[in-house]
């Protein structure tokens, strides 16, 4: 089996934040911790605005694993990067090392004491027994052990966010790109409102 991977299609993401909401709900993520976020670049610039959903990318060569002084990270056979909160000391090195800002630290106490690191688990829980209460309280749901995929990807309304077996996800994305083409065929006036009579017969081929 290939590794578990996420991919977010920036042409489809409509910034609805349902992935972040699904994640929060499914894993009962506390306030101040966002395992998944929706990021928009070129906000408001017509034709250049792009939105993607970002969480832990479960890197094959994860920098968080490399810098962790207590070695609390581990990688499963499915390629999911997980960590042990019993070992984590909340130092924050992983947050500096991660290029995606995936590691999150719940602030608690009067002085904003930094707690144990929390991040996306690909809905695969943690070291505790699969589906146990202890696992849920520390890491959230273990949907992989239930034969399901991450809630964020399964809840995505436009299927911009795909998650699962890397081969399957890549095939889906490839099929999509082949079918839809790129540039002005993907979005724009013609796509939204239909082409005029003359345009319909003679495509202008302009790219966005």
């Amino acid at each position, binding site marked *: *089996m290939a590794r578990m991977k996420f991919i977010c299609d920036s042409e489809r993401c409509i910034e609805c934040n349902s992935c972040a909401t699904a994640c929060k709900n499914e894993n009962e993520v506390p306030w101040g911790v966002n395992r998944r976020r929706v990021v928009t670049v070129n906000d408001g610039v017509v034709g250049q605005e792009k939105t993607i959903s970002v969480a832990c990318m479960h890197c094959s060569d994860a920098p968080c694993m490399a810098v962790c002084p207590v*070695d*609390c990270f*581990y990688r*499963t*056979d*499915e390629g999911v990067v*997980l*960590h*042990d909160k019993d*070992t984590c000391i909340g130092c924050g090195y992983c947050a500096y090392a991660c290029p995606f800002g995936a590691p999150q630290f719940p602030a608690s106490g009067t002085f904003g004491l930094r707690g144990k690191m929390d991040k996306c688990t690909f809905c*695969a829980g*943690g*070291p505790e*027994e*699969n*589906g*146990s209460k202890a696992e849920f309280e520390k890491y959230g749901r*273990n949907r*992989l*052990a*239930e*034969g*399901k*995929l991450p809630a964020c*990807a*399964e809840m*995505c309304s436009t*299927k911009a966010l*795909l*998650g*699962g*077996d890397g081969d*399957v*996800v890549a*095939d*889906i994305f490839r*099929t*999509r790109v082949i*079918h839809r083409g790129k540039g002005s065929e993907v979005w724009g006036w013609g796509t939204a409102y239909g082409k005029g009579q003359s345009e319909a017969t003679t495509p202008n081929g302009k790219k966005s």
Partner: protein
Amino acid sequence: MRPALLLAACAALLTACGEPDQTKTSGNTNRADTPPMQGTKNGYAEAGWTAGNQGSWENQIRARGQHQNEYLKTN
């Protein structure tokens, strides 16, 4: 008797000069995490696959992944 006692004292003293074993094993790390293909007993597992069977779990995950492929639904 005396040499034996001396040897025992030396062994006890040298023990303090040693260091604990830091070898990574499944006992002192988290690498022994139960793989998801072993399933769960929380009652929310999807039907149609056999817990503990790697192939069955992989097929389930692949089939589930194809639910994200709308081209299989609409075209």
